[in-house]
């Protein structure tokens, strides 16, 4: 049984071990003990509410309690862009029309923006390959939304998640090659490394500042704007189920989409409910339920989330093992939400 929980100080080794499996492409989770140690410290101070809400960085780990090892990690940054500017391209529309010539051109336009400054961000999602089965990935990603549903007042109006952008089979980004490359004379990997070093804002200084018509870009670059990397398609779908949408913001390097939502409109806020814990005699090793629900505790300091099967009557009774994972007792209040929307979203 797996539990997602607030990270703790003793998790550094486990976190480092996970980070060493990440590989390139995730800039916030490099296997660097010093950097991870600093992040852990901020995360612990965040859960302990020792630093102001906008500076917090809530890091969660997924723990395989039986085997005593970490299976995954994920995080919520309370507010982006308050230290270094946070840049995106925003896709806008400009219409050029001439009545005299009967020409009406509707042109997509890229604007370099810091519009998302101050938004909360879902980030640093990584699940160890050994655990990539069943609903584990879903639980890991969505557990963060249970946290937000419990503590919405700690976040600004909007939540975002940056998705990795499209790359060709050769690992090249057509968007970078057609745009960023002209202004840097460096290849994508090098630019990406600089990003990992926290230098993204410096790179943004070199990006073209004036609005750009998308039509100026070659076709292959135009086509990948807002398109996720093939490996990221499932992660995108999970977040879209929860109410995040692509609203025209993309990464300045690879044009990967930024998903965003009003926090008040997240499924977790609309549909999750507070219930009292009841116990059941069901066996702990039963097969995973077809329609599992997430159960989350309601205290920040040792915040915990598990996925549990529903009872035939739809209630959320826990067996002994589940209650232990959540560290809760009968009568405690927990927050419950179906892991998957009961009906498909309209969008």
């Amino acid at each position, binding site marked *: 049984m797996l539990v997602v929980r607030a990270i703790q100080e003793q998790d550094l080794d486990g976190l480092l071990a996970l980070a060493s499996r990440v590989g390139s492409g995730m800039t916030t989770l490099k296997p660097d003990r010093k950097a991870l140690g600093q992040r852990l410290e901020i995360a612990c101070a965040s859960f302990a509410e020792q630093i102001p809400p906008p500076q917090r960085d809530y890091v969660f780990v997924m723990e395989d309690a039986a085997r005593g090892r970490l299976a995954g990690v994920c995080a919520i940054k309370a507010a982006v862009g308050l230290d270094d500017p946070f840049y995106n391209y925003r896709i806008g529309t400009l219409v050029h029309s001439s009545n005299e010539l009967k*020409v009406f051109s509707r042109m997509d336009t890229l604007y370099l923006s810091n519009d998302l400054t101050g938004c909360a961000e879902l980030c640093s999602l990584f699940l160890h390959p050994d655990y990539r089965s069943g609903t584990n990935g879903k639980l890991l990603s969505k557990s963060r939304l249970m946290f937000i549903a419990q503590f919405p007042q700690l976040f600004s109006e909007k939540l975002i998640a940056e998705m990795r952008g499209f790359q060709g089979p050769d690992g090249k980004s057509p968007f970078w090659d057609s745009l960023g490359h002209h*202004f840097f004379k460096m290849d994508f990997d090098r630019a990406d490394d*600089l990003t990992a070093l926290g230098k993204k804002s410096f*790179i943004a200084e070199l990006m073209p500042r*004036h609005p750009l018509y998308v039509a100026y870009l070659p076709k292959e670059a135009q086509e990948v704007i807002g398109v996720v990397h093939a490996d990221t398609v499932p992660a995108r779908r999970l977040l879209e189920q929860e109410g995040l949408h692509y609203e025209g913001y993309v990464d300045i390097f690879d044009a990967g989409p930024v998903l965003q939502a009003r926090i008040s409109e997240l499924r977790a806020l609309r549909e999750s409910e507070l219930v009292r814990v009841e116990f059941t005699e069901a066996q702990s090793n039963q097969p995973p339920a077809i329609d599992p629900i997430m159960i989350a505790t309601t205290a920040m300091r040792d915040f915990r989330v598990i996925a549990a099967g529903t009872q035939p009557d739809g209630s959320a009774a826990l067996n002994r093992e589940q209650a232990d994972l959540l560290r809760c007792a009968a009568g405690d209040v927990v927050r419950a939400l179906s892991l998957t929307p009961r009906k498909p979203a309209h969008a």
Partner: protein
Amino acid sequence: MFVVRPVEESDIAGLEELALAATPGVHTLPRSRAAIERAVERSVASFAAHPDVPGEEMYFFLMEAADPSDPSRRRIAGTAAIAATAGASGTFFAFRNDVLHQVSRDLNISHNVHALTLCSDLTSHSQLSGFYLRSREGAGVEAALLSRARLLFAAIAPHRFGDKFFASMSGMTDAAGRSPFWEALGRKFFQMDFLAAERLIEGARNRTLIVELMPHYPVYVPLLPGEAQAAMGQVHAEGKLPFRILSDEGFEPDEYIDIFDGGPILRAHKHALRSFHAGMTRTVNSVQQDEGNDEMEGSYLVAAAGEGCFRATIADCAPSELSDGVVLPPDVRRLLAVGDGDDVLCVKL
């Protein structure tokens, strides 16, 4: 012998015949009978006008190959025009080639990026246009006469013109009339072929629809296809001769290019033009006054310096340096319709 003079109403038929030979999208002279009539009418009115400041006047010149033995026989050898202000009643649009500075101190990277900005800077300049020489193959000094005569007129009547002058040179197009610069830029906004657009707006660059359709934000040059970048500032093969003549006169291809085909726009302050700074006003004499003056002897563009009776031709003569006289050959006096005591403007060819 060649003479350049203001166009007259009796020239319309000859101009119509001349226009047939010109290349669409390259030469900017009027083509249809109606357009030619309008142009001639406008020019006649412009020469007759007494503008307080340069306005909508358009001065249209033609060059005749005159037969000295029979002055009644003549033939149009070419045309050239100059507008008092490029915008006339509108705004003249051009791309300014700006340099944008992109810098990252922390990465120790700094780039100058070129960007084209739609601008109206040239609106109040005087604009040379409509240069067309019938026999471009083996053209001699008469090409320079045709092109520069306009500037002699400007030097004689500076109050009719701005302090700055420009001439837009035809840009690169292929045999089919396709412009690589247009393909990369104008087509995306106009949604039509280069020649179709040029036909629609009759070559003008001062039409409102330009600001309706063309981009208001700078176009970053590195984002243009290589072929379009290569065409920026490149002159069409047929424009090489006027380009050279105007460069010799003092024009420089500086930061402006044409918004449609990317051809270079040559520009100069009048003080940089030879017609202005090296022009000598002299009085026509019959007797050489200054014998030790052989350094000054040579081929000159000579223009009758009266605004109302402008004529220009090429003459071998020797304008005096120390006095204010010049002796002109009889045929030149006849061509320019000047006699003793009349003023002429002389500029070394």
